[in-house]
């Protein structure tokens, strides 16, 4: 080890005030003074903002002047500024991994009130960082080739958009669709809210462009059954199982650099809510069944009559404790769209819109809501936990059904006449989403939606490099948002393709092949599927580009054959020891 070779490392310690964030609780001067007294510390300073340009400049100057070869910065969380300081080290010509951060903000000044104790804790954290940094090794980031081909899973509006965006830039895209046609859920819709554009027009344009574009290779009636490799170098197996389009059981292997998952949603099963009588009352239908009626050209009851009263019930399966707590985002506007479509088919029809809250958040939505009010849609509000009850009307009533509601705005217990009831079924994660998550190695939230790597700043990236998510497989969203995400995912991929190569962190685990007994414990444990087994050598191998350095394999290996680079046993033990040397 380098630390052993050199007689004494030369360490610089910098204690950040973070304005007053750290300084008002921790005596930063005292911490710096304490650090300067520790072995191998050449200098210790405190400064108002270490992350600022003058702060970084100070580190660079000191490295050059005092020939420092290790740096410790006691400041915020490494999540925040580790990259900043590593870059400073690089600018000074020092290997970026010869650096350690002591978190004295989130883990000290922000969570303590006692000045004395907080200062002592800060000292302990600095001492631990010093003990660790002495054992740091210079590491080099890896560079891997980026295959310019991409795989898009799902042929709905999001998948088609992403595929076209990538193919238009001149790269090959494999578009895999499970159904026998492109279009996804949008193909089941007639008009779109709020501008009443025809969904068919939106999709047909995409499908024609895809058919005309030689760079998009479409696999209909097919599934991706296997995905191995890592960013820039994935291998995907596409299997067709629909004999109308491909030979059943035919398998294709393709090499891709990035993957867009755009598998969409499925609608909530309305029969799960017994109050609504879906499946029992013939004229209680779901929104998709109404779409089908509208596309076929006539909105009518089961026995072929024009309805005099139509009721639309919102939040079916959404925003409730028993089913899904989230809002499905598109149903409110779709309901207003139905009101307008039914009204134009049957101008004398009375439409009741039974809702919880009207979510009209998007462009043109509020105006659409207003328009619907102008068209005399009767809006009736119900309490989230107090669902309407639909039952058959009596023989004397002039309607098929009566809907009983505790109307929230008037406080009255009312009944609403209805010949046709439309249930606005919400979106939910597809039943095969778990399978897809495992296939591409991404995570799902409690509702089954795929998790983005940061909900605000990284909405289309995932924790697995090279796997992007777009559209309604991430969360319920409308067409503009889905399209935006698809294009965002394509843009991220194109940026990587443009770079040609991709730099992979040097922090990963590696197997010492001579010690490895080939037990394969680690293969099964790895949460990132980063470990493969070499049948010839009979030992495990870690794909460094996939490894996130979580350390599970290191801990599990019965032969201690795996080493976590930058997280070696010695480094961690030294750090722990450093904590208690005070």
């Amino acid at each position, binding site marked *: 080890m380098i630390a052993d070779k050199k007689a004494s490392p030369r360490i610089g310690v910098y204690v950040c005030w973070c304005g007053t964030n750290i300084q008002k609780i921790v005596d930063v001067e005292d911490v710096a003074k304490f650090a300067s007294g520790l072995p191998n510390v050449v200098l210790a300073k405190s400064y108002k903002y270490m992350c600022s340009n003058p702060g970084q400049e100070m580190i660079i100057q000191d490295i050059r002047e005092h020939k420092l070869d290790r740096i410790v910065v006691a400041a915020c969380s490494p999540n925040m500024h580790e990259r900043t300081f590593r870059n400073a080290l690089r600018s000074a010509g020092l290997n970026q991994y010869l650096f350690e951060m002591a978190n004295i903000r989130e883990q000290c000044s922000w969570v303590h009130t006692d000045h004395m104790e907080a200062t002592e804790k800060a000292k302990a954290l600095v001492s631990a960082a010093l003990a660790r940094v002495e054992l740091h090794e210079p590491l080099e980031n890896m560079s891997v080739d980026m295959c310019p081909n991409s795989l898009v899973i799902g042929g709905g509006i999001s998948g088609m958009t992403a595929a076209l965006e990538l193919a238009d830039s001149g790269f090959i895209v494999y578009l895999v669709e499970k159904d026998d046609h492109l279009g996804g859920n949008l193909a089941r819709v007639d008009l779109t809210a709020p501008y009443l554009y025809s969904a068919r027009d939106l999709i047909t344009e995409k499908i024609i462009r895809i058919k005309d574009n030689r760079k998009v290779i479409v696999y209909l009636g097919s599934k991706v059954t296997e995905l191995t490799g890592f960013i820039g170098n994935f291998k995907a197996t596409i299997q067709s199982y629909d004999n109308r389009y491909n030979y059943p059981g035919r398998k294709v292997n393709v090499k891709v650099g990035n993957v867009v998952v755009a598998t969409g949603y499925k609608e909530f099963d309305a029969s799960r809510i017994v109050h609504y009588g879906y499946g029992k009352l013939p004229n209680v239908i779901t929104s998709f069944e109404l779409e089908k009626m509208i596309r076929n050209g006539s909105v009518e009851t089961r026995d072929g009559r024009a309805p005099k009263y139509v009721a639309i019930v919102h939040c079916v399966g959404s925003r409730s404790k028993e089913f899904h707590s989230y809002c499905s985002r598109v149903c409110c506007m779709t309901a207003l769209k139905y009101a307008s479509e039914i009204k134009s088919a049957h101008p004398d029809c009375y439409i009741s819109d039974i809702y919880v809250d009207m979510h009209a958040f998007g462009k043109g939505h509020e105006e659409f*809501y207003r328009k619907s*009010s*102008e068209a005399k*849609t009767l809006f009736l509000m119900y309490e989230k936990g107090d669902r309407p009850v639909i039952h058959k009307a009596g023989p004397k009533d002039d309607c098929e059904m*009566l809907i*009983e509601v505790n109307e929230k*705005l*008037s406080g*009255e217990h*009312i009944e609403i006449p209805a010949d046709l009831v439309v249930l606005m079924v919400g979106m939910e994660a597809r039943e095969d989403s778990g399978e897809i998550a495992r296939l591409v190695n991404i995570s799902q939230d409690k509702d089954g939606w795929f998790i983005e790597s940061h909900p605000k700043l990284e909405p289309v990236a995932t924790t697995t490099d090279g796997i992007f998510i777009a559209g309604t497989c991430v969360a319920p969203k409308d067409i503009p948002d889905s399209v935006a995400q698809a294009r965002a995912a394509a843009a991220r991929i194109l940026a990587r393709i443009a770079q040609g190569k991709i730099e992979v962190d040097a922090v990963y685990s590696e197997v010492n092949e001579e010690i490895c007994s080939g037990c394969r414990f680690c293969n099964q444990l790895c949460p990132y599927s980063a470990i493969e087994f070499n049948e010839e050598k009979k030992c495990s191998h870690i794909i460094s580009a996939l490894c996130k350095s979580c350390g599970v394999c290191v801990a599990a290996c019965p032969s201690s054959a795996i080493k976590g680079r930058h997280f070696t046993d010695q480094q961690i033990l030294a750090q722990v020891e450093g904590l208690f040397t005070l």
Partner: protein
Amino acid sequence: MAIRVNPGFINDLNRFGKENIELCYQCGDCSAVCPHSDEFYKFPRKPIRLLQMGLEKKVETTLEPWLCYYCGDCSDLCPRDANPGDTMMILRRYLTSVYDWTGLSRKFYTSHWWEIGAVFVIGILIALLFSAFNPHGIVTTLTPDGGVKINEMFPVETVNIGAHIMLISIASFLIANIIRMWYLTLLKDRSVRIPFTLYFRKLYQLFVHFLTQKQFIKCKDRSYWIFHLLLMSAYVLMFVLIVGNLRWFQTDRIYSWYQPQRLLGYYSTLGLLAGLAFFSWGRIRKIGQKFKFSHLSDWIFIILLFLTTTSGILLHFFRLSGMPVASYYTYIIHMAVLVPMLCVEVPFSKWSHLAYRPFAIYFAEIKKSALPARKKNDA
């Protein structure tokens, strides 16, 4: 028991005045800004909700529309331009027609032909009546002080009988309507049990609000209160003088100007003219929310009153100047306007609010006071 929603009700209501009631999304800004709305009588939001849902039976029991004085703050604030102020006005028209058991009120409010036709038919009948049944025709001789012998042309005793017949019929229609209002708003409402004594204890409210109309003071613009009070007092005074006390008012003798007969008459005339000028100017120029929307009944009210006032002034002038022919015809015209105005407007149309408003406040106070009593009993 669930109440059945009637989405077609709005269409019926729109016959009493067209307003975009369905635009309201119940934000409640109107009730928040309204100076008259309180925790017990929440309006305009709540009555509008009942209208939207078409809960007719509930609408019939509301007193809230009468508690509104249409300052228009609600319409100014409404984010959806649903005009809650005008909706309250429409609702008052609707309620007037609900209280009226004859169904005439509904006809007058919902059909221009009925309203204008009724005024014309009654006017022509009265003109014919006065032309046919006068014993002496036009009497050209003058009284010693130079006035027209109006009592010889139209004997006050005879006219007075007619006036009393009219008074009694108008009053009985109006009283019947008020009883119906009481039945619908207080008696039918099973949620409140009203102790009998409360009717006496709150009776003063009826007179206070009738005479002062002090609820107007709560509105920002007080000019409306002043002119409304002026018009109302002048109108009521004139009504009492002419219809109730014709023998004292219609004399051949010309009194000095400072005598009460003439002084009161002048006060009324000036009050009517000032009020009419204010209201007609407001309505023509559509000043503020209050005058933005004018229904036919609003205009008929102004026009008939204006014609009555001007013909009255002319009659007074002709009589004093000793012009028998002009007086004769002006008298007939005056009656041909005055009688239909009173017969149509007072019990069946716009003028009924003169009675409904103070009664509504009186009933509302009773209801409000009765509620804690009910709660106490429940506990």
